[in-house]
C-alpha cells in the first residue's frame, strides 16, 4: 500500500478518535437542559467530562495538523472553502472550553446560568456543523482548476448535508447521554438511560436514512458494508441500553460513530474532495498528498507515538473510572 493511502485511513482514524471522544463531550454539553434539574445535577454532568474534554478536543488539533502535513491541498481547500462554517465551530469550541473552566469559578447562579447556556450552544453547534461539513465533502463541492472552493456558504446547507448534520447531532447527543448513564449514579443515571432510549429511536431513524442515502448516492460495496455494520451497532447499542447494560451500549455507540466515519471515508475513496462541477478538478489521494518522504517521516512518528499515546490516554480514563455522584459533588469544595 502506498503511504498516501495509509495516511488517508490514518486521517480517518484521527477523526474517529475525535468524534468518538469529543462526541460524548458534545452530548453531555447538550444534555444540560434535559438532565440537569438543579445546579448539582448540572455539576454532576459537567464533572463526567471535566478532566477529559481538553484531551478529547486535542484530537481535532492533531487531526487538523496531520491533514495539513499529509494532505496540504485537502486541508487548504476544505478549510478555506468552509470558512464560515469553521468560524462557527471555532467560536463554539472557544465558548464551550472556557465555560467548563470558568463556570465553577464563581458561586452566583446568574454567572453559572450564562456558562450553562454557552456550554449547550458551544456543544450543539460543532455537533451539527461537523456533520454538515463532512457530508459536503462526501457529496462534492464546486472546485475550480486550482482546487479552490467556488460555492457559497449557503450551497453547503443542502438537504443531504443538513441530514448529515442532524445525524452527527443526534449521534453525539445519544452518545453523550449513554456516557452519562455510564459515569453517574442514582436518579440521574436512570433518567439518562431513559432519555437515551427515546433519543436512540430518533437517532436510529435519522442515521439510517443518512447512511442509506450515502450508500445509494455515493457508495460502493465497501461503503455498504460499513454502513450496515454502523446500523447494526447503533441498534445493538439501543438494545443494550434497554437492558441497562451501559458499558455495552456505550461501546457500541462508539463503534457506530467509528463505522459511520468509515462509511464516509470509504465513499470518498480514492477522492478526498470530489468536485461536483467537473471531475477533473477533484482532489484525490494522489494529487492532494505530501511527498513520500514527508509521509515516511510522519509514519515513523505516528508509529512510535501511537502506542504511547494510547497507553497514557487509556490509563487516564482508567484512573478516572469512578462514577460521579451528587454526594461527591456536594461534599467537595468548590
Amino acid at each position, binding site marked *: 500500500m502506498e503511504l498516501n493511502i495509509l495516511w488517508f485511513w490514518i486521517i480517518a482514524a484521527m477523526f474517529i478518535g475525535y468524534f468518538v471522544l469529543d462526541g460524548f463531550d458534545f452530548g453531555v454539553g447538550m444534555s444540560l437542559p434535559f438532565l440537569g434539574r438543579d445546579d448539582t445535577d448540572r455539576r454532576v454532568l*459537567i*464533572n463526567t467530562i*471535566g*478532566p*477529559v474534554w*481538553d*484531551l478529547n*478536543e*486535542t484530537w*481535532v*488539533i492533531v487531526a*487538523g*495538523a*496531520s491533514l*495539513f*502535513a*499529509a494532505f*496540504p491541498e485537502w*486541508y*487548504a481547500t*476544505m*478549510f*478555506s*472553502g468552509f*470558512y*464560515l462554517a469553521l*468560524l462557527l465551530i471555532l*467560536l463554539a*469550541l*472557544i*465558548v464551550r*472550553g*472556557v465555560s467548563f*473552566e*470558568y*463556570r*465553577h*469559578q*464563581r458561586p452566583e447562579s446568574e454567572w453559572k446560568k450564562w456558562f450553562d447556556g454557552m456550554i449547550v450552544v458551544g456543544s450543539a453547534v460543532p455537533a451539527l456543523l461537523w456533520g454538515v461539513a463532512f457530508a459536503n465533502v462526501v457529496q462534492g463541492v464546486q472546485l475550480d482548476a*486550482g482546487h*479552490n472552493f467556488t460555492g457559497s*456558504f449557503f450551497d453547503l446547507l443542502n438537504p443531504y448535508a443538513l441530514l448529515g448534520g442532524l445525524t452527527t447531532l443526534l449521534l453525539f447527543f445519544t452518545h453523550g447521554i449513554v456516557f452519562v448513564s455510564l459515569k453517574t449514579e442514582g436518579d440521574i443515571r436512570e433518567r439518562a438511560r431513559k432519555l437515551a432510549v427515546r433519543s436512540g429511536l430518533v437517532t436510529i431513524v435519522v442515521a439510517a436514512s443518512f447512511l442509506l442515502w450515502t450508500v445509494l448516492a455515493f457508495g460502493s460495496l465497501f461503503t455498504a458494508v460499513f454502513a450496515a455494520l454502523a446500523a447494526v451497532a447503533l441498534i445493538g447499542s439501543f438494545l443494550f441500553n434497554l437492558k441497562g447494560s451501559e458499558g455495552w451500549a456505550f461501546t457500541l455507540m462508539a463503534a457506530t460513530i467509528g463505522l459511520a466515519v468509515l462509511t464516509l471515508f470509504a465513499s470518498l475513496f480514492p477522492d478526498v474532495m470530489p468536485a461536483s462541477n467537473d471531475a477533473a478538478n477533484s482532489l484525490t489521494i494522489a494529487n492532494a498528498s*505530501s*511527498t513520500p*518522504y*514527508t509521509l515516511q*517521516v*510522519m509514519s515513523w*512518528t505516528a508509529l512510535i*507515538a501511537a502506542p504511547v499515546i494510547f497507553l*497514557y490516554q487509556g490509563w*487516564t480514563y482508567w*484512573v*478516572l473510572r469512578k462514577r*460521579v455522584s451528587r454526594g461527591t*459533588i456536594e*461534599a*467537595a*469544595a*468548590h
Partner: protein
Amino acid sequence: MNEWLDPLLLSRWQFGLTTVYHFLFVPLTIGLALTVAIFQSAWVRTDKAKYLQLTHFFGKIFLINFAMGVVTGIVQEFQFGMNWSTYSRFVGDVFGAPLAFEGIVAFFLEATFIGLWIFGWDKLPRGLHLATIWLTTVGSIASAYFILAANAFMQNPIAFRINEARGRAELTDIGELLTNPIALASFPHTIFACFMVSSGLIISVAAWHLYRKQHADTMRPALKFGMWMMVISGALTTFFGDSLSLAMTAAQPMKMAAAEAMYKTATGANASFSLFTLGTPDGVSELFSVRIPYLLSFLSTHTLDGTVEGINNLQAQYAALYGPGDYTPTIWITYWAFRWMIGLGIAHILVAVVGLWLTRGGRTPAAAWVWKVAIWSFPFSLASMSVGWIFTEMGRQPWLVFGLLKTESGVSPNVSGLEILISLIAFTLIYGVLAVVEFRLILRAVRQGPEDAPVPDPLTGETPQRVTVY
C-alpha cells in the same frame, strides 16, 4: 472593491490580532506550569505546608489562564487553511510536519496530564500526581519547540526543494528542518522569556499581598522565588536573544537593518545602536538620536569592526535577485518594536535585581512606591514578548516565507473580504469579552490569597485529601 474589504489586509489583521492575543496566554501557561511543578516538588520533598499552599494558589491562576491558551490555540491551527490556503498548499509538505508533531507529541501530553493533575489529587499517589504536572510542563515546552521550528522555516527556509510542477516546497531533511539555526536560538530565547512573564506575575502578586502585610509566610518566599527566576531567566533570555540576532543577521540581514532603521551600510564605530531617535515618522530622516557606537556591529557580527548592511543596499540586492518591488519592512514598526522589546525586558529584570537587593537578608522595604513599582511591573515582560513577536513577524515582510513566497501571494483567493471582516469582528468581540472575564477572575483569585493549609483530623491524625470538582 471597497478597500476596507481587502481580504489580504483583513487576513493580516486577523492573524496578527489572534496570534498576539493567543501569545498573551501561552507564556503564562508555560511559565506557570513550571512554577507550579517546582512548588509542588518542593512540597513533596519537604512536606512543608507553605509549598502546598503556593502550589494551589498559583495552580488556580495557572488553570484560569490555561483554558484561554487552549481555546485560542485551535484558531491558530485552523486559520492557516482558512485564510492562507495558497500558503498552506505551498508549504504544507514542509511546514505541516512540525505542526503535526506538535499535536502528536506535545499537545496530547499536555492536555491529558493537565486533566489528571487537576482531578488527580485524591486519585493518584503523591509521586505520580507530581509527575502529571511535570509532564504537562514538558508538553507545553515541547509544543513551543515545534511551533518555533515551523516559524523558523518562514524566517529562514531550509531543508526543502521547490517542485516546479506542483508549485510547492517539498521537505528534503526533517533533521535539518528541526535544527534550523533560527529555531535553535529562538526556542531558548522564547522559553526563558516565558519564564520572565510568569516570574513577573509572581512578583506582582506576592508584592500585592506583602504590601498589605498579609500572607507573608507564603508570599515572601514566592516574591524571592519570582525575583530570582526573573533575574536568571532574564539573563538567559538576553544571552539567547544575542544568539538569535546573530543568526537573524545571517539569515535576514534586512530585518537587522530594519531593527536599527539603518539605511546606509556601516562598519565598526559607525554601526552604532540608537537608544532613542527622534525623526520623521517613516524613519527616513533623523533629527536627534542617542547612540552607542560599535553596539550594532557587535550585536550583528560579534565583532567591533563588523559591517552591517544598510536597507538601501539590501533593497537594491533583493530587487536584482527577486525582481522589482519593495523589500523593506515597515521601518517605524520594526525600529520601535525592537527597542520596546529590549527596554521593557530590561526594565523588568531591573525591578527584580533592585527587589532582591532591597529584600536581602530578611529586609523589607518600607517605601510604598517600591511596592507599587513591583505590583505594576507585571505587564513589562508580557508587552516585551508581544512587541518582540511583532518585530519578528513584521521584520519578515513583505515575505511570508522569506525569499520564496510573499505575504500578498499566500492569502486564500476564494474567501471574500466580507467573510473575513465577519470573522475578524467575531474574534475581536469574543476575545475582548473573554480578556475582561479572565483578567477579573485572575484578579479575584489573587485577592483571595492562598487557602489555609489543610489541618490534620484531630482523631485520626490524617490530613484530608483534596478533592477537585467543577
